[in-house]
């Protein structure tokens, strides 16, 4: 035996990163080597079948002798915003390294992030454009595909109008692509453009924005480290946002904080909780009122906070009074003592934060749930300070950005809405004629000689698109039903009622699926012609910015050129716009760069256009240069505050990581971004703020009063502006409305505007300069002046515990459409049928029919759904990743041991799960576990490719089928839509389970 000693130079020391412990670099020395051992020694025996695990040629190792380029992008699989560090050699992604410098993930990843390299050489990707001809997929060229698609679209436009083409965008778009896609829909002439936010946090956006101004996470993942009490309700971040748990668990350990998980299922997150509260699915509002009951009863509420910064808390108090512990226990199943304990912790051991996810949002009462959560935060004064807030964990990489940039049927980019002011603002930004834009839209005569202009009407949401295809023409409020669906980066198994979706899918004239993978739209049989598959690059093959859930923007570099014949979204959108005839207008101010297939829009240039128009949400300060500087200097940001350290270089000095929006004014004004929303402890110029004055300055309210011994109703004006609360350094020591030229003039601050700013404002205002506001002034002057005086450009108002414009201004409990508690359905029915998003929401009728049919008897098990750590969304991408697919190979249902025993179901055995609608059933494996309570079943939602017991693998074009297929839970999930956003009911329905 020889001892070989090789002293390889230590390149980097890694231990230092494990925690805050310094350590000297490793000194790796030597390995023993067997004497006389030769490689050929066993060649002869090898032929006898001594199999060995070897490296395939497809994956070359990092060649240490060759130069390596390091590129940074952002993981596409959730919204935490983990930096992915790639080592590239010869245009091939050869290695992945931990991203130590990122203040968000600090080197770490979850299973998906650690396996992300696979997706850019994954051989299950769609390799070239394909067209479905008589049931067979044929390879075609990009040019042919785009020519045929655009011709068909124009034909449909001619026959049925622009509203018959439905656009579905993606939360995996970069901000720039999302913006282009929204812009394309606008130029085409429809508001029917949606994306994944509809089915994940649309109710959050609506509920939160209606409470205090913006529909986003108020604080950040990092800030959770400051919390002393955390409630995670309706979320399982240990699987959905694993890296966030790094911050949650560190916070829990450092502060010895309370971590309370409220969920129908004992999740992996609950395994690390200090208290787990099991509730009946769909009873979030009673649980919150159960908490508020104890809080109000014991006077634990934050009275000063409520007085200064909250409107309408008394209405909540009245509602909470109805929810005494006994009633709550009856409805939710939670013992009163436990809720009291949790309520006391949340109210007294502050700062407290409430974290939620799709367990809160995917309900017929989604918006109301979210509003109830916000109310709890407001009542305990837990908003607008470190360690507090609504920490809303969003889904995909850029679901926050795509939402912000208007892939939403109710608004133009950055929440400007759809009214004339909004369109005029954007036509100014785009430098296109307002009348021309207006002319792109369908119009129809309305009542009393008015004209209904579809330019201002919300479009068709992704939860109901198939209804809009199959519905009778006179049942839908537009000229014709949907004829074409253009789907960029969205799965086909994400919405309940798949049997009905199949009908819609079959009835479409044109289906375009532009995606790195064919998605479940393809696996579902029924179409023979008129389907096009376009291979789109993944986010990792794309330059551009992404907005993480904490509102930080991060610039991702294209790691490698799109593989196979894949193209970037930018190029595909540009080429499609060219063929639809408006590319010259749409790309007027956007620079082109040389891409893989020729000219393609430059990401930086698109971001500059967003900056130019993005004042309403503070997307105006994040220039590409600033974002790139942040990525370059990641290591200089603090992991708790996200603020640049004292030793940071000048280009990022004072900034918060990723310039979390709102980042006010022009990039030159160098606003540092707002890490915590509504934080009055900071000056606005340093990222502080107030609640947004969005709903006027006062409200007329009818109150009952005693006058001359008689009870009369009289109108009083209630002040909606903050009282005695203002952000640090504010010159106005009270509430104030949003800033317009009129307000500036009144304060005498208009003289602070520079001449250039004034010129721009004059140009925008025309003959009504006073109407130019902080959101429409793209000189940035109004914002600059307001901030200079310490004021939030959007005003300083109260948050609303009573949101009078919503269907349930103060949240009230409503039983799910399919509830096992018929007695409670009678007491807490869902809202009556009504029209929303151009079609009828018939929830009430469905609920009534279910009760009448006694559905609770034949379908006794509550079914809820959720996420697995290995997969994401519809799952085609991750189920095609061999490193991930190996870990979850079967669709399964979690069933309680008692329910399993009663049905003769064994662990790992096949079962049929029957749904209450359409005689739908799915065949899955049983996972017998106490994670779920008795009478409850849980299924993951990422599977697809089987349909009611049948394997649909043959429907995929050869070689593009994902490694793992399985039944989709949405085959058996059921009817139900939130009244505000048409969010589907994804979390509560009923089912029956039987051994197969």
């Amino acid at each position, binding site marked *: 035996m020889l001892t070989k000693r090789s002293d390889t130079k230590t390149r980097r020391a890694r231990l230092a990163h494990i925690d805050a412990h310094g350590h000297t670099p490793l000194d790796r020395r030597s390995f023993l080597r067997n004497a006389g051992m030769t490689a050929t020694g*066993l060649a002869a025996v090898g032929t006898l079948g001594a*199999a*060995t695990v*070897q490296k*395939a040629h497809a994956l070359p190792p990092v060649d240490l002798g060759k130069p390596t380029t390091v590129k940074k992008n952002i993981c596409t699989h959730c919204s935490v915003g983990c930096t992915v560090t790639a080592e590239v050699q010869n245009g091939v992604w050869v290695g992945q390294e931990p991203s130590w410098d990122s203040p968000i993930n600090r080197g770490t990843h979850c299973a998906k992030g650690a396996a992300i390299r696979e997706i850019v050489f994954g051989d299950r990707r769609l390799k070239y454009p394909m067209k479905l001809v008589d049931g067979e997929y044929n390879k075609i060229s990009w040019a042919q595909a785009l020519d045929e698609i655009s011709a068909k679209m124009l034909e449909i436009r001619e026959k049925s109008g622009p509203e018959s083409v439905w656009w579905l965008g993606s939360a995996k778009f970069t901000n720039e692509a999302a913006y282009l896609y929204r812009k394309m829909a606008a130029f085409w002439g429809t508001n029917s453009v949606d994306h994944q936010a509809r089915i994940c946090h649309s109710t959050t956006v609506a509920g939160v924005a209606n409470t205090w101004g913006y529909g986003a996470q108020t604080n950040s993942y990092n800030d959770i480290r400051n919390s002393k009490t955390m409630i995670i309700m309706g979320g399982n971040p240990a699987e959905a946002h694993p890296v966030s748990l790094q911050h949650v668990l560190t916070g829990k350990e450092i502060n010895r904080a309370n971590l309370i998980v409220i969920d129908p299922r004992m999740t992996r997150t609950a395994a690390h909780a200090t208290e787990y509260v099991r509730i009946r699915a769909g009873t979030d509002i009673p649980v919150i009122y159960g908490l508020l009951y104890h809080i109000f009863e014991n006077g634990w509420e934050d009275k000063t906070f409520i007085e200064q910064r909250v409107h309408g808390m008394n209405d909540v108090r009245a509602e909470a009074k109805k929810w005494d512990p006994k009633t709550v226990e009856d409805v939710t199943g939670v013992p009163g003592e436990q809720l009291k304990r949790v309520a006391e912790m949340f109210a007294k051991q502050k700062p407290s934060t409430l974290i939620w996810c799709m367990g809160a949002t995917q309900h017929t009462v989604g918006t109301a749930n979210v509003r109830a959560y916000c109310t709890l935060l407001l009542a305990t004064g837990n908003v607008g300070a470190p360690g507090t807030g609504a920490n809303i964990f969003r889904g995909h990489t850029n679901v926050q950005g795509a939402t912000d940039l208007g892939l939403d049927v109710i608004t133009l980019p950055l929440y400007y809405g759809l009214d004339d002011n909004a369109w005029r603002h954007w036509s100014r930004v785009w430098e296109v004629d307002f009348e021309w834009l207006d002319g792109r839209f369908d119009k129809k005569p309305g009542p009393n000689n008015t004209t209904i202009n579809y330019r201002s009407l919300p479009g068709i949401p992704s939860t109901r698109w198939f209804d809009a295809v199959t519905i009778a023409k006179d049942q839908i409020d537009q000229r014709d039903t949907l004829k074409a669906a253009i789907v960029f980066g969205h799965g086909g198994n994400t919405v309940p009622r798949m049997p009905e979706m199949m009908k819609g899918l079959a009835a479409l004239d044109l289906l375009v699926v532009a995606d790195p993978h064919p998605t479940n739209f393809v696996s579902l049989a029924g179409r023979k012609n008129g389907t096009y598959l376009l291979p789109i690059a993944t986010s990792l093959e794309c330059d551009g910015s992404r907005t993480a859930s904490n509102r930080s923007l991060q610039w991702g570099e294209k790691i490698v050129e799109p593989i196979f014949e894949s193209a970037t979204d930018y190029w595909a959108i540009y080429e499609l716009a060219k063929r639809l005839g408006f590319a010259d207008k749409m790309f007027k101010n956007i620079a082109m760069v040389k891409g893989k297939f020729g000219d393609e829009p430059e990401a930086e240039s698109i971001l500059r256009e967003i900056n130019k128009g993005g004042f309403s949400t503070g997307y105006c300060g994040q220039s590409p240069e600033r974002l790139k500087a942040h990525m370059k200097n990641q290591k200089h940001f603090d992991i708790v505050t996200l603020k640049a350290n004292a030793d940071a270089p000048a280009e990022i000095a004072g900034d918060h990581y990723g310039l979390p929006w709102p980042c006010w004014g022009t990039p030159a004004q160098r606003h540092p971004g707002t890490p915590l929303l509504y934080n009055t402890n900071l000056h606005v110029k340093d990222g502080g703020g107030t609640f947004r004055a969005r709903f006027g300055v006062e409200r007329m309210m009818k109150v009952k009063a005693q006058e001359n011994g008689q009870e009369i109703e009289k109108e009083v004006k209630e002040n909606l502006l903050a009282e005695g609360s203002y952000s640090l350094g504010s010159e106005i020591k009270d509430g104030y409305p949003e800033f317009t030229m009129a307000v500036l003039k009144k304060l005498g601050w208009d003289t602070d505007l520079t001449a250039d700013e004034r010129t721009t404002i004059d140009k925008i205002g025309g003959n009504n300069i006073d109407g130019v506001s902080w959101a429409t002034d793209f000189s940035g002057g109004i914002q600059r002046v307001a901030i200079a005086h310490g004021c939030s450009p959007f005003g300083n108002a109260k948050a609303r515990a009573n949101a009078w414009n919503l269907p349930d201004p103060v949240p009230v409990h409503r039983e799910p459409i399919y509830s096992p508690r018929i007695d409670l359905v009678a007491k807490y029915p869902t809202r009556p049928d009504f029209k929303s998003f151009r079609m009828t929401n018939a929830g009430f009728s469905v609920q009534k029919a279910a009760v009448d049919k006694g559905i609770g008897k034949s379908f006794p098990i509550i079914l809820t759904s959720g996420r697995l750590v290995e997969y994401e969304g519809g799952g085609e991408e991750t189920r095609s990743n061999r490193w991930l697919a190996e870990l979850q190979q*079967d669709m399964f249902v979690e069933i309680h041991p008692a329910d399993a025993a009663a049905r003769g179901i064994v662990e790992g055995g096949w079962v049929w799960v029957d749904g209450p609608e359409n005689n739908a059933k799915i065949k899955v494996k049983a996972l017998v576990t106490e994670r779920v309570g008795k009478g409850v079943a849980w299924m993951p939602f990422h599977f697809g490719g089987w349909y009611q017991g049948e394997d649909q*693998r043959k429907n995929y074009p050869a070689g593009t089928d994902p490694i*793992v*297929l*399985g039944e989709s839970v949405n085959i058996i999930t059921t009817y139900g839509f939130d009244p505000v956003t048409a969010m589907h009911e994804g979390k509560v329905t009923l089912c029956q389970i039987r051994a197969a």
Partner: protein
Amino acid sequence: MTSFIAAVLAVVAISVGASFLLETQQQTVDKTYATSGTRVDLDPRLSGGVAPKH
């Protein structure tokens, strides 16, 4: 003597037969640890052969 030679021959024959039969039945782990919902591209690296030498 014939019985001895026949026996040796039989041992060899049975062994060779067994090796062929069993090697064809031998399953690589990628196949074994894949369930009904999957289509794994079987990995040639697992089925034998010697590592490529450069």
